[in-house]
């Protein structure tokens, strides 16, 4: 602050800035305030005989606003000012000097100081450019070159420049640049897939009762989902009951006539129902498997079935027993049924 300024302040007098009332922005108060001999009063407003300019709040505001504009323009257009191709920084400083002539109050001086800090910083950087080796790098020029590379179609008409938009970029502009730029990168390719990216519940197995299915072992029961397990258990119970029943019949028939061989086919075939026939074959197979019944061939090489005595059950275990597969189709069943009926009729005739 120049001595001039300091003197002016003292002469203004007054300590604090009197609180403004009702937006009395313009004008000064005359003769209202007592005159005091003060020092340092910052933005004193008091009646005095000094230049109106010093105290005109409107003017003060204007000066502060101009300073702020200058500071902003330096900050916003930093790299523009850094460009060695112009003297914008110098112009700003010249404007600052002009403004400074009108600075009267510390508030304005503070802004002036702030502007100097910003400008000096810039000046420092600009100076370093002069002394740095090698070519300068101008981001503005860089942007221009990039636009050309991306395929900017510059329009011929000068009129369009008024909009600030000269030319238009093709749609794949950034793709073009990305493809070229990609060579500077060592990105790892990424792995994409669909399988395993989501969980889906498999559909529940159909409730078909598979005839050839073995009863599940204990381990299989443990890992089976609850729903399935319940179905298995009830199915198993039903099977066991049926097997017991058939064993009862077999023992019964055998007990009645121990010397008369029981034809296997006679035993399992139900002349009235194909499906029941199939079930009988199924259940009978359990008896064979568990060694509770035995199939053997009679003199005519036809299969016969007889129960195994308790105690007679082979110690060898299931692996020592031979197994075979019996199949029957509706056709066969019809033929057999006919034969059976014929046989029965024949028997009754005898």
């Amino acid at each position, binding site marked *: 602050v120049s001595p001039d300024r300091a003197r002016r302040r003292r002469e203004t007098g007054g300590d604090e800035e009197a609180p403004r009332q009702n937006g009395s922005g313009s004008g000064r108060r005359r003769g209202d305030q007592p005159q005091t001999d003060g020092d340092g009063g910052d933005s004193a407003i008091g009646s005095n005989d000094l230049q109106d300019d010093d105290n005109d709040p409107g003017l003060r505001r204007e000066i502060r606003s101009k300073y702020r504009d200058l500071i902003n323009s330096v900050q916003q257009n*930093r790299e523009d000012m850094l460009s060695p191709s112009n003297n914008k920084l110098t112009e700003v400083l010249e404007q600052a000097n002009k403004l400074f002539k009108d600075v009267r109050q510390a508030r304005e001086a503070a802004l002036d100081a702030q502007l100097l800090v910003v400008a000096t910083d810039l000046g420092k950087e600009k100076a370093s450019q002069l002394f740095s*080796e090698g070519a300068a790098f101008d*981001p*503005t*020029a860089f942007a221009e070159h990039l636009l050309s590379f991306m395929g900017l179609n510059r329009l011929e008409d000068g009129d369009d420049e008024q909009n600030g938009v000269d030319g238009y970029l093709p749609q794949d502009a950034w*793709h*073009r640049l990305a493809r070229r730029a990609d060579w500077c990168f060592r990105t790892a390719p*990424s792995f*994409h897939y669909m399988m395993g990216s989501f969980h889906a519940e498999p559909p529940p197995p159909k409730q078909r009762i598979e005839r050839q299915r073995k009863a599940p072992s204990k381990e299989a029961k443990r890992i089976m989902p609850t729903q399935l397990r319940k179905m298995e258990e009830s199915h198993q119970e039903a099977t066991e009951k049926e097997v017991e029943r058939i064993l009862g019949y077999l023992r019964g028939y055998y007990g009645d006539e121990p010397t008369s061989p029981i034809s296997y086919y006679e035993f399992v075939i139900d002349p009235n129902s194909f499906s029941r026939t199939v079930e009988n074959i199924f259940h009978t197979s359990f008896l064979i498997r568990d060694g509770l019944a035995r199939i053997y061939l009679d003199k005519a090489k036809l299969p016969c079935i007889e129960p195994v005595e308790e105690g007679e059950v082979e110690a060898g275990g299931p692996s020592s027993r031979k197994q075979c597969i019996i199949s029957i189709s509706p056709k066969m069943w019809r033929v057999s049924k006919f034969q059976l009926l014929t046989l029965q009729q024949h028997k009754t005739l005898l």
Partner: protein
Amino acid sequence: MAQRRRQSAPQNQSQAAAQEEDDDLTFTQPSTSQVQRGLEKVTNAQVDQKTAEVVQYVLVKDQKKIPIRRADLVKHVVKEYRNIYPEIIKRAVRTFDQVFGLSLVEIDTKNHIYILVNKLDKEEGASQFNNPTNPKIGLLFVILSVIFMKGGVVRENLIWNTLKKLRVDPGEKHEEFGDVKKVVTDEFVRQRYLEYARIPHTEPAEYEFRWGQRADMEVSKAKILEFMGQLHEQEPQSWSQQYREAHSSSAQTGTSSSQR
């Protein structure tokens, strides 16, 4: 795991990060002897299985180029095998190297963060197999180039103003990039391509950009300079300071294995 009072309010990003750091703090890298003892208790097949899971995890995280935290690896994948963590990582690094030609590198040794980088050079020239590149790479390239050519750190305004000249305005939604400011200051930063840090004592707050740790590993300064030269029709050597930096030993981004 020590009992910790959970915050009832939804966690914001910094709180979540702090939480994960805490998780990491509970994991201390086991010593070599600890690893040895741990290895005696498991079969080779088990270790290989865990290694495969780590490889899968890293590949998944790399889909979006999100760096992998050691804390997450331990928590989600390694789990009860944490006492032999160094061995598992060693095998994962070897798998990526031998099977994929990729490097699993720790870019942040303090916070233990990994990324995947390529060991093989990209084939130059158009090829039927060059899948269309992500346009964001173009955007990233512009920013990284300016930072590099300007000595390694720039104020954010320089970046925004340069982008504006390319018809990319951070204040407006861009046709290709959407919310540009978010892509640049959030996505690229999270991927560790950029660093976006506040300049102290600035009011209003101003930020500056630097290269991120991923850029340091993935991007070749020499190749940037080469492209610069083509664009400006100048010799790359004319930017002598940058040229020196690009070809210094610290700038080498790993061995090059491509041949012409």
